[in-house]
């Protein structure tokens, strides 16, 4: 059981601290299974905070998303800490951001929330249709219970959990200042990269066709990038016109180049929170690209990002004995 | 599709003359251009304050004020500050090179309505470009206006545009010209300080006068404040806005300030209009 009272108390205490700017958590959304990030500035706002299997959003994104507007002369920027709630996967984003100096440790108060997996709303909507009213959900004895307008419905995890959660090995935050709730027993020890292997099993042509079909739907809204906690470049090369890496026009060639570039930029950095895939309005299975690189990184360099704040970034390091069987 | 009515299709024009007004990173270059097509040349008409989209094929287009008055002849003049991709390409143009022009776009300074009045132009930096046509227009129709006061400043003397023309202005009857630079310089005989303070120094009377200002946003803000101090009525004050724009014809969206499209409803606005638009001075 999630003790919301406790959560709200933690939030109130945190936000009352002088060195904290705001507290980011989740609140109920406006319809169905929706949930929205919630920025708490006043203790009263803390009463809307929730933590449930619907809290998919990786709030670490907001650490770097806030615009740094020009500070008027004579004023000082607000450099107080940001407090944020993180699930296991989200916490890896915080760690990776520390590795990449996207944030400084003393800029954040991390509220670690051990997590038993979040719901893939697409899956549950397929089972139930999209309910009008706000749905609440909770974890109970290894199951997920949705409170629907017409009563409660119980699901076994496999039915409704997001794909990323089914294979999650880090349900407990890997970094935190305050732990909210009790640590949970990880239910998956080893990532088997099943979806990746399925694609790897296809012929080249089949793979090409598969991905071309997916990429052709991309409308290049760049949501997948915007939502990514690790895509925090001041001026992303995918947007840049000088030099132009990717043309603005939306067609299969540019889309493919865009997808490859984005995925590559996240090689050894993606912490598998699955947000890009979740937000994609045209349902491109982006995690299958990211996972492929996770797999490659694991197999070739025995590396997993977002676990050790002291680690060297994969793309900025090497080992003299890195695999090189592909060299002519 | 009827080619004639496609508003996105630019006309080809050729650079006749080109020279640098200023130097440095963000230097300003003036181009004098002539349309290639005789017919276009004949049918073209514009008024002070209007702009055109000029461009280089393969690079893109930029909205640029026409910095000459129709009274000067059948050519167009543009003074362009080097900012980014397109303006850089424009800066590379030399006499004989081609560029594309479409327009004229936007409204104009109501120079006809202003007849009988004294005009004060208050410019800063590249902001003098849209003001220059007013000056030329008034010069050409000198008897129709009560007088002309030119107030113009830049960071340094090297950043002043149209230097020689400004010198000549002093010889014109009823025309006064006041120059300023931001930082003290050896041998500078004129005012040192920001344009808004120069305005106070010049202290023009609001009596039967129109004030027009153009320059960086921060300068405009203080010029407006000072004009109010000098008791100019909202209707007596004009300015131009520059927002990023792509189409120039009120479609692409980005140039709006509040419910106004700068490209169609502007770029010339009277303060009376603008002061009700919260976004204008955000």
């Amino acid at each position: 059981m999630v003790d919301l009272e406790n959560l709200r108390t933690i939030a109130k205490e945190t936000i009352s601290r002088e060195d904290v700017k705001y507290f980011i958590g989740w609140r109920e959304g406006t319809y169905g299974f929706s949930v929205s990030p919630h920025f708490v500035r006043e203790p009263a706002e803390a009463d809307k905070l929730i933590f449930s299997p619907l809290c998919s959003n990786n709030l670490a994104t907001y650490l770097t998303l806030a615009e740094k507007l020009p500070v008027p002369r004579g004023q000082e920027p607000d450099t107080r800490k940001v407090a944020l709630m993180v699930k296991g996967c989200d916490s890896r984003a915080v760690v990776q951001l520390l590795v990449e100096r996207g944030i400084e440790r003393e800029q954040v108060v991390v509220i670690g929330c051990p997590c038993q997996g979040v719901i893939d709303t697409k899956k549950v909507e397929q089972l139930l249709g999209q309910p009008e009213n706000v749905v609440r959900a909770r974890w109970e004895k290894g199951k997920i219970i949705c409170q629907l307008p017409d009563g409660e419905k119980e699901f076994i995890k496999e039915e409704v959990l997001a794909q990323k959660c089914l294979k999650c090995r880090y349900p407990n935050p890997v970094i935190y200042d305050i732990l909210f709730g009790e640590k949970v027993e990880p239910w998956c020890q080893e990532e088997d990269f099943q979806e990746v292997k399925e694609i790897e099993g296809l012929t080249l042509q089949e793979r090409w066709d598969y991905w071309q079909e997916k990429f052709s739907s991309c409308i290049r809204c760049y949501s997948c990038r915007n939502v990514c906690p690790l895509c925090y470049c001041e001026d992303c090369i995918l947007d840049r016109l000088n030099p132009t890496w990717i043309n603005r026009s939306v067609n299969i060639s540019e889309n493919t180049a865009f997808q490859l570039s984005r995925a590559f930029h996240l090689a050894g950095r993606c912490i598998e929170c699955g947000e890009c895939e979740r937000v994609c309005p045209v349902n491109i299975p982006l995690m299958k690209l990211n996972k492929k690189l996770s797999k490659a990184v694991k197999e070739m360099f025995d590396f997993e990002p977002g676990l050790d704040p002291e680690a060297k970034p994969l793309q900025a390091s090497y080992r003299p004995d890195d695999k090189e069987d592909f060299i002519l | 599709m009827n080619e004639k009515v496609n508003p996105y299709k630019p006309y080809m024009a050729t650079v006749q003359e080109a020279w640098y007004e200023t130097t440095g990173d963000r230097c300003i270059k003036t181009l004098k251009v002539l349309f290639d097509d005789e017919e276009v040349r004949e049918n073209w008409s514009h008024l002070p304050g209007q702009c055109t989209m000029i461009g280089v094929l393969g690079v893109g287009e930029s909205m640029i004020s026409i910095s000459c008055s129709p009274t000067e002849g059948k050519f167009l003049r543009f003074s362009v500050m080097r900012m980014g991709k397109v303006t850089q390409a424009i800066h590379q143009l030399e006499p004989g090179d081609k560029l594309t022009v479409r327009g004229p776009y936007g409204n104009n300074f109501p120079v006809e309505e202003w007849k009988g009045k004294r005009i004060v132009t208050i410019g800063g930096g590249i902001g003098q470009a849209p003001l220059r046509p007013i000056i030329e227009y008034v010069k050409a129709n000198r008897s129709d206006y009560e007088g002309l006061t030119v107030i113009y400043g830049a960071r340094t003397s090297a950043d002043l545009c149209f230097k020689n023309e400004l010198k000549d202005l002093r010889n014109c009857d009823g025309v006064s010209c006041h120059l300023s630079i931001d930082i003290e310089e050896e041998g500078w005989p004129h005012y040192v300080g920001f344009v808004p303070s120069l305005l106070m120094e010049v202290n023009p009377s609001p009596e039967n006068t129109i004030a027009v200002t153009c320059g960086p946003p921060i300068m405009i803000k203080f010029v407006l404040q000072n004009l109010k101090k000098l008791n100019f009525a909202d209707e007596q004050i004009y300015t131009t806005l520059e927002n990023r724009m792509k189409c120039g014809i009120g479609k692409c969206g980005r140039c709006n300030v509040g419910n106004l499209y700068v490209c169609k409803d502007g770029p010339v606005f009277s303060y009376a209009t603008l002061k009700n638009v919260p976004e204008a001075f955000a």
Partner: protein
Amino acid sequence: MESLKLDKDKLKDFIAALDSKKVYAPQKVGETIKFAPVNGDLEVSLDFANTTVPPKEIVFPQTETMFLFEQGGTDINLTKGGAEKVLLGVRPCDARAMSVVDNLFSWDIDDPYYLDKRKKITLVGLACLEPPLNCFCPSVGGGPASTEGLDILMTDLGDAYLFQPLTPKGEQLCQLSSELLQPAGAEDNARAEELHREAEKKITREVDIKGLAEGLPSLWKSEIWKEVAEPCLGCGICTYLCPTCHCFDIQDEMEGLDGRRCRMWDSCLFKEYTLHASGHNPRPSRRERQRNRINHKFSYFVDKFGVTACVGCGRCINLCPVNIDIVDILSKVKEAL
């Protein structure tokens, strides 16, 4: 013209009868539902709720070549106009959206690219008998069976579609396949009306937009915008996929010595949208950008063209990854007024 009826199992023949024109209908392409050409052997089904990608992309493609040129050349070759098209199964909101956008593309100076396609398109609508959750078309002047912008309105009567031709274009289209269409009876019309009424009742989300157009500017400094913008990712899904959003960017692209000037969708929620070359940005943060989005739809557009630039299709609500809900925003705005 009188209403007509088409047996559901004749839908395929009906499409075949329109041969010369390209028929587009909602289809699943990859994982997405959008309007795509009906290809001979494809099973046509109109059972989809509204498409993810609105049919605006047919008249206002995401990327559109405006003209071609050669580097260093002086010839500008305008692209040719498109072919006639029929859009089958357009939802009333999307059809209304087109008439909303028509205002923009035809005010003062006509936009030849849009208008050419718009003129060559026939919209065959399908009344929304089971409106999806986040629709609020009635609140913004439409309805699940609104006819605005449509040439024909179809209503699903169970085993047949009722065809209500609304414009000469629509009538013409019906004549093309006159042998397939039966005249409808009064009870069919009545049944349709009944269904329409019921459908409207099914819509639960609503917001009162009266007074918004005038009122919104007064909330310029309101905290609402901060609240809205704070979780916003600035991703632009809500605008790219909005049937009434119409902003675009223009870019030149080169391949060797060949060049094209094209325009592509743009969004006021992107930072680059208003960014000046000098680095100055008149809308520096998501707060100003969200404020512009709402003001534009519910105030500026109304000022200029007398209609709201939102047709209540609910896409932005459904697709926003962080649950920024336009109905919710409007309600808050309303409250604050």
